């Protein structure tokens, strides 16, 4: 095997900074790096937990960095960065159609000036929009001028908006200083491997120092640059999330190793996402029949990494021009034509007032959950069940079964209610056609769940769900999700104890292909 110093003509910086520094920084961030002491409560947990006030301040309104925040706060991406320096087998930049929704695809590109106007327009319309991210459709750092110009304009006109970016990491070490300068305090790196032998099956080529480099050499450069970039971000005090695409048979088992590698370098949060590989996307993986993971395969991998560090499970793999809460996309309201015609008045006082209301609701929700949790104290059981929840935000069960575009999944145990993911489903109420097929789709997507919590549900789907072994529950309409789920679970345990019902393990479920887009 070739060693680093043998790579021809490529100066490679040594990677290992003092372990002690990394440990110190990671502890400051709330996640110890020493083996076995990883805390599942850091990163995306429900509340502040044991995060330092400084870190909590950074993540509490960021929907991608805090699971709890994603019920309340919205984000937007501006597509100012079309160029890329890496070719990935799960990406096809050529494909672009209105119904297409996955990372790497956008409807229209923006100039930095258009992007800045769009941010103001969205911030004025959606007061809970707190985060502006640049995530492509290519790589933000392969377009450094456009990316940093956008940040510069926005930090002048809307200084209360948090800036973040998502990169493949190849150019990251060259830009950490500039990232710091613009107060970008959240950076996501997509790291799919730390072993070039595996990387060569994911990345066909990179453009590096004026050359196209292929195979294992390309993968080696990628992993060195990514880990160096991560270490530099950690040393600069910038919060870093790592995204990994789970590709069964290629890197699924290896991602546990990736998890360890990024945790030891101070990553704050790890987001393992399912591969999207429908043949019609025209990606290498789509065309060669590479499958994505099932819902339970994904959950098992996320669970196995969780002892090491906190896992993000609420990612919707959104487009590089998404607007709104995670799980909704309002980008169609903000096309360039519409923005340019808008009379935008940026009113930071009313934004702040709105956000204070949201804070109050968050606190009420947390208190309600604590109260309900106290009822479970003293109970002990090995039983765990999954439930699906129809919600349109604010942490409440407030969506009609037939209107749900996705279901959020909670795992219930005597430890409480834990958010473990979401399942995209097609719209069930589509005006009368294909309803039976649509119901089948929903059942396949939540087949591993014992119950589905809804604000309302019709008689026909109710019976079909029951026949499939999924209990429709509308007793908690418009109540807080976690509080309701714990109450339901307590009742469930009582019924099992009394012999009224038998606890049964459910099967697996499908992950719908394609990123989430509201129709």
């Amino acid at each position: 095997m070739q060693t680093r110093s043998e790579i021809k003509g490529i100066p490679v910086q040594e990677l290992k900074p003092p372990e002690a520094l990394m440990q110190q920084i990671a502890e400051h961030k709330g996640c110890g790096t020493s083996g076995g002491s990883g805390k599942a409560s850091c990163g995306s947990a429900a509340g502040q937990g044991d995060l330092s006030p400084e870190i909590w301040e950074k993540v509490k309104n960021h929907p991608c960095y805090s699971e709890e925040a994603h019920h309340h706060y919205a984000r937007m991406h501006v597509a100012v960065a079309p160029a890329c320096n890496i070719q990935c087998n799960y990406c096809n930049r050529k494909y672009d159609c209105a119904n297409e929704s996955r990372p790497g695809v956008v409807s229209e590109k923006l100039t930095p000036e258009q992007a800045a106007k769009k941010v103001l327009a969205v911030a004025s319309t959606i007061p809970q929009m707190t985060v502006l991210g640049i995530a492509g459709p290519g790589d933000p750092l392969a377009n450094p001028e456009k990316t940093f110009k956008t940040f510069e304009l926005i930090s002048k006109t809307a200084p209360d908006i948090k800036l973040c970016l998502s990169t493949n990491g190849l150019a990251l070490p060259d830009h950490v200083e500039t990232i710091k300068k613009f107060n970008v305090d959240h950076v996501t790196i997509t790291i799919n491997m730390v072993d070039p032998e595996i990387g060569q099956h994911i990345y066909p080529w990179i453009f590096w120092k004026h050359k196209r480099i292929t195979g294992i050499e390309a993968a080696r450069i990628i992993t060195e640059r990514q880990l160096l970039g991560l270490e530099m971000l950690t040393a600069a005090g910038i919060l870093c999330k790592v995204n990994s695409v789970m590709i069964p048979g290629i890197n699924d088992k290896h991602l546990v190793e990736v998890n360890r590698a990024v945790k030891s370098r101070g990553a704050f949060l790890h987001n393992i996402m399912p591969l999207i590989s429908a043949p019609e996307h025209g990606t290498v993986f789509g065309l060669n029949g590479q499958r994505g993971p099932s819902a339970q395969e994904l959950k098992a991998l996320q669970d196995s990494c969780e002892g090491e560090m906190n896992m993000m499970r609420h990612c919707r793999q959104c487009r590089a021009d998404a607007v709104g809460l995670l799980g909704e996309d309002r980008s169609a309201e903000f096309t360039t034509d519409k923005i340019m015609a808008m009379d935008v008045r940026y009113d930071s006082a009313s934004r702040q007032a709105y956000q204070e209301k949201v804070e109050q609701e968050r606190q009420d929700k947390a208190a309600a959950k604590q109260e309900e949790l106290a009822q479970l104290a003293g109970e002990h059981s090995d039983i765990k069940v999954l439930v699906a929840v129809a919600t349109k935000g604010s942490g409440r069960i407030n969506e009609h079964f037939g209107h749900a575009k996705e279901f959020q999944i909670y795992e219930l145990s005597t430890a409480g209610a834990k958010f473990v993911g979401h399942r995209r489903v097609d719209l069930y109420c589509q005006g009368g056609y294909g309803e039976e097929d649509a119901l089948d789709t929903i059942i396949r997507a939540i087949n591993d769940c014992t119950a589905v919590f809804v604000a309302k549900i019709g008689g026909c789907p109710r019976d079909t769900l029951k026949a499939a072994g999924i209990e429709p529950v509308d007793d908690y309409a418009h109540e807080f999700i976690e509080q309701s789920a714990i109450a339901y679970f307590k009742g469930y345990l009582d019924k099992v104890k009394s012999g009224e019902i038998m606890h049964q393990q459910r099967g697996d479920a499908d992950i719908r292909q394609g990123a989430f887009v509201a129709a």
Partner: protein
Amino acid sequence: MAYKIISSQCTACSACEPECPNNAIREKDGTYIIKPEKCTECIGYFDDPQCVAVCPVENTCVIDNAYPRYQAAV
């Protein structure tokens, strides 16, 4: 003496534009074009034509047979 971009395949990702050592590439009508009189096939600058090396769609930056191959000044 030039490369050309097949516009029906171009994703307009703009990756080629800043890589061109001759500033021969620009956006036009939602796609990118190479000004043939400025293109030197990167001879004298790089081992490989940069637009070809960076383009995400195979066979999109190709030799334009309408022009003779570029000859570096001796």
